[in-house]
Structure formats: structure tokens, C-alpha cells
């Protein structure tokens, strides 16, 4: 074989198992009655039902976006199940009451929830299909005044907080998928950090899709009051099915004066097989509002899974001197498609944003960076630095960059750097000629390429991310 860079073979996806469990599942399809049913099953306050119905009515008038650089067969929204929950007691007082099959599932995923085994400095909210099944360390956090619970619980226990902030960053009619999410979301995490509190541990939500026909629509809301601090992590996996599952989440972050939110994602949804069959459609709206002066929101994402990724974690920099950051590694292999990037909207004075995007494309995959930097008329002295690097592995992968720049204030400064590199036969030969195996060569080059982003992740997860990328690319060359 003279052309050494061959088609890619994925390491088997090790999270592809299915948990057998009795579920409470509603019939397929979507209409106002389904929305009423979801809301009543969750016993929601009236304002929530109205919110959902308004969103649904908007959604009906909207059309699916076609501008992303991805292609997929039309989605039949009437063929999706919008609510599925493992059958168990409505309210759990302790983990002992959680179905052992669920605890075992999370243990298998490396997220032990039981008191003895849980991660020492990470509080976890575990979400299985449509609902949150357990949240660890709640009492410990409560002592500091930190609220960390499922959004369903928050709707009962802190309805004013939810009502005040839900939809304040991503309005119900923001875009097609956000509107759909607003109508049907079933669960997600809620975080509230009171004034002046530094959250004593990492907060994390782990999303698990189990069912093959259920869409997953979760909603995350994080509010950081004045001078508070929080680091939040999100992880996700799904079983391997031949069909595609829709995942349309919305994440809203609000940072008040001098507050800081760090949001990290290690996304490892099932990506489909090596021929592109199956996998998750990941259509996600994530946005942070730096409402207060000197506030800071930082997104770090490592995107390795999903058949299709459509995702632009963004920052709206309203407060003077506020800071937005976006650090991203997006890896696509086989027939995966990713259209991902960020939006940095500078509104306040002296606002600053940094964008570091690293795209790695292998196999026949398509990997696009799409980013908007907007300097509004009042953004005196605002600055942005963007760096978009692409790495191609083999000859059949694609990388694209679509930067959009709108400057309405002449004192604003923007800097943009971009590069494309390739791991080809000659680079690999340079390593092997020095006695270094191809696998080590690829992982050394990838680690080096992603260093600036991995450095932003909490330590345990940086190691995990590094390992994950190597696994994903194992056998992809040579």
C-alpha cells in the first residue's frame, strides 16, 4: 500500500450499550396536547406551560436553518418521542431509592453516583433520557448557598428565579431548535451561585441518551450573582443505534457584576459507524450574558462525537470591561459533520474576547468553523483576538472557516490568525524514521495542536480529553 494514509477505522465506541429499564413514555409526535402533557407530568407552574406554548406557536412559523455546512435527510418531527422517563418514585430522598440499573449505568460510564465512590471534588447531576435521576453533594453545596439541582426541581422550589432568567439570554424564538427546546424541554440542570460565593467544587451534568426514538431536549440555566465564581462541566454519551437521535439543548448563562462562569464540555455522543450510519444530531444553542461590569464567561469545548454538530457557544458582552472566551477543539472522523464556532457580541466599553478554535478532520468528515465578532456602536475600546487552526488527517477530509466580522465602532480592535496544517505521510514518516510509532506520532501532534485549549480544562478532564482524542483517531492513519 503506497498511499499510507488510509481510510479510518474507529476504536469501538465504548459507551454504546443500552440499559433495559421500564419507562414512562408518551406517544410519538408533537402538538399542543403533547406539550400540555409534558408540563402536567412534571407538575409545572402555570407560567411554564405558557412559556412552552408560546415557544411552540413560534416554532410552527419557523423553518429549519439551511445555512450550516452540513447535509442530512429531513427530520420528521412527528416521528420523535418527546418525553420518556425511567419509571420510579416521583421524589427521591436519597440515592438508595434510585433504580440500581440507573446507578449501574452511570458507574459503567465512569460517573459513580454513590456516596462511597463519587468523584471527590465534583458534584454531578445525572440526566437519563428526559429526566434528572440524581444530584450529588446537594447538602454540602447548600451550606454555601449554592443551588444545584435539576431544572424540574428548581421550577418547584425556586420558581421566581427560573421565571426571571429562563429565556432571558436565549429568547424562545431565537432560532428553530431553541424554539423547539423551549416548547418541549424535559429536564436539565439549574445552578445559582449567590453573591460573593466561590463555588467550592466543580459542578457537572452528565447527559445520557438511552432510548432510540426519544429526542433529548435539555435546558441548563446558570446564574452567577455579583462577585461569584463557578466552574461547570458537561459530559455526554449515547448508545449505538442505526437510526439518528435528535439532541436539541439550550444553555443559558448569566454573569452579574464581577462574576465569573467557566463552562466546559466534553461531548462524546455516539457519532455513527464508519460508514456514517446512526449517531446523534446535536443541534445546540449555548449563550452567555455578561450582564455585569467586569464579568467573565468562558466556554471550553471538546467536541468529538455526534453525527452532526451545530453549535455556537456565544457571549453577549453587555457590562463594561466584561470578558468572553471561547476555546474549542472539534474533531470529526469518518462521515461526521461539524459546523461549530462562536459569536462574540461586544456591547459594553472595553469588552474583550478571545477565540481559539482548533478543528481536526479525519476520514471523509467535514469540519467547519463559523464565527461572528460584532463590535456595536458603544463598544469603545473593545478588542477581539481570534485564532482558527485546522488540521487535516489524510486526503479525504474537509476543513472550512467562515469568519463574520461586523464593526460599528472605529476604536474597536480585531486580530485574526488562521492556519491549516496536515498530518500526512511525510510527517508520519519523519516520526517513524526516528523510531516513533504512528499512533504516538499522531497523538503527539494532536496534543500539541490542542494544547492551548486543553490547558483551559479542569485538570482531570484535560487528561481525559487528550486520551479521548487519541482513542478516536486510533487506526486512522497508516
Amino acid at each position, binding site marked *: 500500500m503506497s498511499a499510507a494514509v488510509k481510510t479510518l477505522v474507529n476504536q469501538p465506541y465504548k459507551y454504546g450499550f443500552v440499559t433495559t429499564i421500564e419507562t414512562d413514555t408518551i406517544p410519538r409526535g408533537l402538538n399542543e396536547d403533547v406539550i400540555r402533557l409534558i408540563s402536567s407530568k412534571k407538575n409545572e407552574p402555570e407560567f411554564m406551560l405558557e412559556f412552552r406554548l408560546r415557544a411552540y406557536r413560534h416554532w410552527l412559523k419557523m423553518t429549519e436553518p439551511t445555512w450550516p455546512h452540513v447535509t442530512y435527510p429531513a427530520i420528521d418531527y412527528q416521528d420523535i418521542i418527546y418525553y420518556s422517563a425511567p419509571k420510579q418514585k416521583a421524589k427521591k430522598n436519597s440515592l438508595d431509592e434510585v433504580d440500581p440499573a440507573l446507578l449501574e449505568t452511570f458507574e459503567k460510564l465512569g460517573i459513580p453516583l454513590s456516596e462511597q465512590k463519587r468523584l471527590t471534588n465534583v458534584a454531578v447531576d445525572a440526566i437519563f433520557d428526559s429526566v434528572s435521576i440524581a444530584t450529588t453533594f446537594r447538602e454540602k453545596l447548600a451550606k454555601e448557598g449554592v443551588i444545584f439541582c435539576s431544572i424540574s426541581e428548581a421550577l418547584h422550589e425556586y420558581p421566581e428565579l427560573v421565571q426571571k432568567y429562563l429565556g432571558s439570554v436565549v429568547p424562545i424564538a431565537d432560532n428553530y431548535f431553541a424554539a423547539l427546546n423551549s416548547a418541549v424541554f424535559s429536564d436539565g440542570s439549574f445552578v445559582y451561585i449567590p453573591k460573593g460565593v466561590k463555588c467550592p467544587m466543580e459542578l457537572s451534568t452528565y447527559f445520557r441518551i438511552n432510548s432510540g426514538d426519544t429526542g433529548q431536549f435539555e435546558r441548563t440555566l446558570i446564574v452567577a450573582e455579583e462577585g461569584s465564581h463557578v466552574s461547570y462541566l458537561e459530559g455526554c454519551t449515547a448508545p449505538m443505534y442505526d437510526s439518528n437521535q435528535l439532541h436539541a439543548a439550550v444553555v443559558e448563562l448569566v454573569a452579574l457584576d464581577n462574576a465569573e462562569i467557566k463552562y466546559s464540555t466534553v461531548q462524546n455522543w455516539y457519532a455513527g459507524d464508519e460508514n456514517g450510519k446512526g449517531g446523534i444530531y446535536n443541534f445546540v444553542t449555548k449563550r452567555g450574558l455578561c450582564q455585569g461590569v467586569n464579568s467573565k464567561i468562558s466556554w471550553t469545548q471538546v467536541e468529538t462525537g455526534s453525527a452532526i454538530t451545530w453549535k455556537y457557544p456565544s457571549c453577549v458582552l453587555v457590562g463594561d470591561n466584561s470578558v468572553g472566551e471561547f476555546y474549542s477543539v472539534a474533531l470529526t472522523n469518518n462521515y461526521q459533520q461539524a459546523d461549530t464556532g462562536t459569536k462574540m457580541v461586544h456591547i459594553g466599553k472595553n469588552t474583550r474576547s478571545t477565540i481559539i478554535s482548533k478543528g481536526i478532520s479525519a476520514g471523509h468528515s467535514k469540519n467547519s468553523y463559523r464565527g461572528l465578532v460584532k463590535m456595536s456602536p458603544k463598544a469603545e475600546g473593545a478588542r477581539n483576538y481570534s485564532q482558527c487552526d485546522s488540521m487535516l488527517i489524510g486526503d479525504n477530509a474537509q476543513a472550512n472557516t467562515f469568519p463574520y466580522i461586523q464593526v460599528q465602532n472605529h476604536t474597536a480592535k480585531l486580530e485574526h490568525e488562521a492556519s491549516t496544517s496536515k498530518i500526512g505521510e511525510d*510527517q508520519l514518516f*519523519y516520526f517513524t524514521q526516528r523510531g516513533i510509532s504512528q499512533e504516538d506520532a499522531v497523538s503527539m501532534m494532536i496534543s500539541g*495542536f490542542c494544547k492551548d485549549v486543553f490547558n483551559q480544562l479542569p485538570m482531570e478532564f484535560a487528561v481525559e480529553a487528550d486520551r479521548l482524542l487519541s482513542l478516536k483517531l486510533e487506526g486512522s492513519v497508516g
Partner: protein
Amino acid sequence: MMTEGSEVILSVRDLTAEVDGTPILKGMSLEIKAGEIHAIMGPNGSGKSTFSKVLAGHPAYEVTGGEVIFQGQNLLEMEPEERARSGVFLAFQYPLEIPGVSNLDFLRVAYNSRRKHQGLEELDAFDFDELIQEKLDVVKMDSAFLSRSVNEGFSGGEKKRNEILQMAILEPKLAILDETDSGLDIDALKIVANGVNQLANPENAMLVITHYQRLLNYIIPDRVHVMANGRIITSGTKELALELEARGYDWLLEAETAEVAV
């Protein structure tokens, strides 16, 4: 140098190879014994780099005939990394840039893969640091180069010196230097030659590809071969290099065509 009776390090017989279906090597034969330095000269495009890459196992080249024995082993059956770990080293004519990988990490991983192959313990970062300082002196390179990405932004001459640094660390059994002297200033040339001479010993062998007789003033070859059109057309002592410098290749090429025509 006395080489009677020494071990044969490399024996190449009737080697033919092609790239993308185009035959490039058309019957290379060569034997190098332990303790010997051989030089290959020859016009541009004659196949010198191809020969060196085929020996190192570059996957783009397909061997279509002949044999290569390296220290008694069939080299052609070995993967490129096995060849390297067994002591085949190629200093590239055009060393590649490897962004994001520090020179130090690259050297350490390479060195340890060779150690492991030899059944020796891998060196940790501290011990390796000592070793590398010593080798930096050989090529008079500043340690600042270690923290930079492999060859990235290096000048042409710095890249070549970096190749010699790698060679000094790996201590190969067979070192192939593909035009390591090209693009070097006179001081750098001396440094590189000095590096090569320090490495040369009665147990190993060197194959030096060059266009310039001047390198051979510093590295004294035991044999000089002239390659044309994918094979060796003549071989001689170091005086052959002087003659080539004075007369060029035409007289040899004409003689060769005449021979073929007969």
C-alpha cells in the same frame, strides 16, 4: 581505514523501486562494512534521495526487486520504525516542520524507543536532559532550540544541524546523510562534519550523499559512488570526487550511454 574482514553492515543487491508506477531505482548495488564511510554523488534527479528513503522504508516507494540486508536482516521486511530502532538513521535532505511538538519531547520519545528496542531502561526527563546538553555541544546548538517545535521556523542550516543532533542522540549503526551539507555556511559545515566524525567508529557505517567535494575534505570517504539514472555507474576512491569536481558528470554519462548502446 582498515576494513578487511569487518562485518558487513549494509548490502544492497540489484535494488529496483518505483513511485506512483514510475521506476526510479533501476538496479542499485552497494556494500558497506563496519567502520566505513561511503559517499554517493550524482546529478540532480538521479535517484539519491529515493535510494535513501527506500532504505529507511518510506511508504510512498514500492520496491519491485532486489534485496537489502542490514546486519544480516532483511531490511525490506521491516516497518520503518523497526528499521529506525535497529539503527538505521536518515538525515533528511528537506527536514519537515512538526508544529506543536517540542524538539525536546520528540528527541526523548525517539531516544527512548531506541533504548527500549535495545532492552535498555528508558531515560527520565532529568537523565535525558544531561545527555542532551552534552550532545548540544557537539553540534554547537543553543538549548533554546529544545523548547521550540521541531524544525518550525528553523533556518535551513538550523534544520540540518538539528538532524545531526538527532543523529548524535540516536547513535545509529547506519547513518545516511542526504545532502546535509547543502545550504550550510562554512562554520556550520565544519560543525556538521565534526559531528559526523565524532560518531564514526569501527562498529558503524555512514552513507553520505553530497554534491560537493568540499564536504569530503572534512569527512574522508572510503569509497565514492556516482549515481545516474537510478543506479551506480562508477565507484572509486576519494580522488574520484576531485575528478568529478573538475570535469563534471558528462564524461561519465557519455561513457555510460556509449556502453548501453553497444
